[in-house]
């Protein structure tokens, strides 16, 4: 694969990294190899001006007060961005990490809500990341709200959703409207293919730009230092995906 070519993972890493430019501290939770790699890429580009805390990492995690520190730190306003996934995500940016069906009698159980029901409220820039872009995942209404996308007035909520990144496109989240807006579509997709595969309503500009590909420099960073860095926490990811280049 030449520098101009890139894998979907590399594109997503580059897309997410751009959303972190200029921030001071990005935290990455469990089971998040692509966001983790994106944060480490952003750090490499920011020349140490960005602090990255990868949960489960010894080398890329400066927390010293135990597993609770990330939550305290977020509540103190010291974490600028975080990532959440979701077995289902709906058009109001509600995320479901619990399961499909009528709780507690679920047809399909997911791992659980992790810290979503807290961090989604407190971290200013929460980036939703879910590669699968289908009507199965992007639904009109989630079966279980692990964490709500928007809150009623009067609820303490300095944080919330910023964007949704999938294998097909990037949506930004408009907090005032409580709706997603299509921001860019990845090469090979069209406005129609996005609409076809998205189960919720969203806003869209008249013409949707294509997601810019990663530069050769970015790809070199991903395949070099970033890949080596992420291997500590996600050895399979680092081996199987990043070495494809």
């Amino acid at each position, binding site marked *: 694969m030449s520098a101009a070519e890139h894998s979907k993972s590399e594109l997503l890493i580059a897309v997410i990294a751009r959303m972190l430019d200029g921030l001071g501290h990005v935290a990455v939770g469990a089971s998040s190899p692509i966001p983790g790699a994106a944060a480490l890429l952003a750090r490499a580009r920011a020349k140490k001006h960005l602090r990255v805390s990868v949960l489960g990492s010894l080398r890329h995690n400066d927390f010293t007060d135990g597993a609770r520190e990330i939550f305290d730190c977020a509540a103190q306003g010291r974490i600028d961005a975080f990532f959440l996934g979701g077995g289902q995500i709906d058009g109001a940016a509600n995320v479901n990490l619990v399961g499909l069906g009528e709780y507690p009698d679920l047809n399909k159980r997911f791992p*659980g809500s992790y810290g979503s029901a*807290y961090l989604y409220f407190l971290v200013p820039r929460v980036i939703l990341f879910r590669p699968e872009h289908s009507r199965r995942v992007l639904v009109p209404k989630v079966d279980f709200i692990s964490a709500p996308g928007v809150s009623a007035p009067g609820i303490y909520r300095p944080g919330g959703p910023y964007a949704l990144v999938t294998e097909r496109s990037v949506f930004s989240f408009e907090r005032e409207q409580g709706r997603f807006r299509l921001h860019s579509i990845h090469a090979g997709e069209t406005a129609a293919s996005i609409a076809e595969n998205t189960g919720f309503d969203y806003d869209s500009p008249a013409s949707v730009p294509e997601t810019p590909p990663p530069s050769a420099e970015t790809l070199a960073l991903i395949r070099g230092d970033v890949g080596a860095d992420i291997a500590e926490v996600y050895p399979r990811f680092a081996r199987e995906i990043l070495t494809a280049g």
Partner: protein
Amino acid sequence: MAFGGVPVETVEALAARVSDGAMVAVPPDYSFVAMAATRAMIRRGVRDLHLLAVPQSGIQADMLIGAGCVAIVETAAVSLGELGAAPRFTAALENGAIAIRDSTCPAIHAGLQASEKGLPFMPLRGLIGSDLMRVREDWKESENPFEQGDRITVLPALKPDIALFHAPFADRSGNIWIGRRRELVTMAHAARATLVTVEEIRDIDLMRDEALAGGSIPALYVTAIANAPKGAWPLGLAGHYEADQAHLAGYAAAARSRQGFDDYLAEHGA
């Protein structure tokens, strides 16, 4: 054999201290999980545990659930991480074989800190609007007493009967070194009893070593210790050994079926 009031015993004896029905707090996969003791609990056939993951769990919860040791799991998540869903956890919930108290990480930390402080409850931000508030009937929406109209959640204390984990080393007085894994400190403070397996017992005094004391749990909170070299295997012990990825992948594949899980247990001494 006892020293300083903290008995040192076999892993079997330590595991036998976990009574049927006990509420047992365990750390996440990356934080000093007592896997040797977990296998001993399965061999002993402990039943009806209320497993409290602090704040989530992986293979430990999956094995205990698969082996029929668990009645209730209280957790922010159970997953094998990069290896995908935890198969026995998922199957047990889809079959209704166990009850779950779905939580979120900071709620579990807050509940333990309430017990650490002898408080009946702790307030927590977030949560309001999550369906967790709907399904957790023990959580309440309340009001900030210092600002009218500011709604905030209050959570009851979580008081485990037992905190169970594996640590790099203890000293001869029963003090335990845990480094930066301070959720273990909170677990030990909050629980009625704390059971610890260790890689080794060192001939030092952790309380009089200023470099190490700050990363230690005093014997005051420790009920019993067992020597268990490689006691976190197949998980890793940060700074000591890496997780056995091949073994974990083998577990993830085997545990997809009931039969595969049973074969795994039979093969791996549990």
